[in-house]
C-alpha cells in the first residue's frame, strides 16, 4: 500500500470537506441557479484532487470542461426553461423522506466500503514510468498512437452532439417561407410600411435600457424599436422621473 504523505492528507481533508459542502449545498439550495453554482465548488475541488494526485491534465480538463463548459450549459438550460418552477415539500408517499435518508446513507456506506475494500490495498503499477516525461506528454504518446482510433471516433461523438442539439433546438423553415432579397425589398417599400431604419431602443426615453421603446416625435413609444424577445417593462414612477441630468 502506498504511503500517504501528511501534505496529501491535509489537502484531502480540506478539499474533501469543501467538495462535500458543495454537494450538500447543491442538494439543499432552493434556487436552481444557486444549486448549479454550488456544483461548481464540488467540480472545482475534484479538479484540484486530480492535480494533487499527479494527474494535472485531467485536473485542468475538469476545470475547463466541467466547471467551464458543462456548467455554462446547465445555466443556459436553466434560463431556457425558466426558473419559476417552485419545489413542493409535500410528501407524495408517506415516510418517503425518512426512507430516502436511510436508503441514501445505506447506499453511500455500501459504495464507500466496496471502494475501500477494492482499492484499499492496491499498488499503482507503471505510473512513474508513464509519467516519466511528464503527465501530458505521456498521455499524448498513448492517445495519439495506441488509442488513435478511439480519439478519432470522439469527433463522431461531437458530431452527434451537434446533430442532437439541432434536432432539439432548431426550427426548420419550410423552403417557401424563406424569402429572398427581392421579396423582402418589395415588402419593405410597400405602401404602409416605413422603409427607413428602425429606431434604436431607448432613444429620447428616460432610460438607456434596450427594453425601453424609443420615443416618436409625438412622444409616444415606438413599439418597433424593441426586440420581440425582450420582456416589455413598465417603468415605475421613480424610474420614469427626471434624472437630474437635464439642464
Amino acid at each position: 500500500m502506498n504511503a500517504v504523505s501528511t501534505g496529501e492528507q491535509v489537502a484531502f481533508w480540506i478539499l474533501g470537506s469543501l467538495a462535500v459542502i458543495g454537494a450538500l449545498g447543491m442538494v439543499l439550495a432552493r434556487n436552481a441557479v444557486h444549486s448549479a453554482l454550488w456544483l461548481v465548488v464540488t467540480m472545482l475541488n475534484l479538479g484540484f484532487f486530480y492535480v494533487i494526485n499527479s494527474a494535472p491534465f485531467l485536473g485542468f480538463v475538469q476545470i475547463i470542461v466541467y466547471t467551464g463548459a458543462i456548467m455554462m450549459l446547465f445555466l443556459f438550460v436553466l434560463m431556457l426553461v425558466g426558473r419559476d418552477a417552485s419545489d413542493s415539500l409535500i410528501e407524495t408517499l408517506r415516510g418517503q423522506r425518512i426512507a430516502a435518508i436511510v436508503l441514501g446513507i445505506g447506499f453511500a456506506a455500501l459504495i464507500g466500503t466496496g471502494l475501500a475494500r477494492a482499492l484499499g490495498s492496491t499498488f499503482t503499477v507503471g505510473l512513474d514510468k508513464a509519467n516519466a516525461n511528464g503527465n501530458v506528454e505521456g498521455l499524448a504518446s498513448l492517445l495519439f498512437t495506441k488509442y488513435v482510433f478511439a480519439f478519432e471516433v470522439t469527433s463522431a461523438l461531437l458530431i452527434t452532439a451537434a446533430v442532437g442539439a439541432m434536432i432539439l433546438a432548431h426550427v426548420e423553415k419550410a423552403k417557401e417561407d424563406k424569402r429572398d432579397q427581392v421579396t423582402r425589398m418589395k415588402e419593405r417599400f410597400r405602401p404602409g410600411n416605413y422603409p427607413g431604419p428602425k429606431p434604436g431602443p431607448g432613444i429620447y426615453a428616460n432610460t438607456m435600457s434596450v427594453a425601453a421603446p424609443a420615443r416618436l416625435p409625438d412622444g409616444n413609444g415606438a413599439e418597433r424599436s424593441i426586440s420581440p424577445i425582450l420582456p416589455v417593462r413598465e417603468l415605475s414612477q421613480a424610474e420614469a422621473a427626471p434624472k437630474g441630468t437635464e439642464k
Partner: protein
Amino acid sequence: MTINPYVPIVGLLILGALFALFSVSVAPIVGPKRFNRAKLDAYECGIEPAPTPIGGGRFPVKFYLTAMLFIIFDIETIFLYPWAVSFDMLGLFGFVEMVLFILTVFIAYAYVWRRGGLNWD
C-alpha cells in the same frame, strides 16, 4: 535550480486576488462620489436589472445551439493541448490524425451552419 511549475500559477492566483481586493477596497475611498441616478442605469445596452420578470424570464432556445457548439469546440481544444505539447515527438502521423480530427469536428459546424442553425430570425 528548478522551480515547481505550480508556483507561477499560485503566484498569479494571489496576484489576481490582491488586485481585485485592492481595486474594490480603494476605489470607494479615493473616487469622487457625485450621485446621479442615470449612472445606475444600463447604458445603451442591456435590460434594466429590476424588477425582474417572474421566474427570471426565459431565454430563446436558440442559445442552446450556441452553448452546444461552444462545448464541441471546447473539447476539440482539450485534445489540441497534449497534441501541441508532444508535436515534435508525433511527427507527420500526429499532424495527419489531428487534421482528420479537426475536419470531422468541422463537419458538425458545417452541418449546423448549412441547416440554418446560426441564423437569427
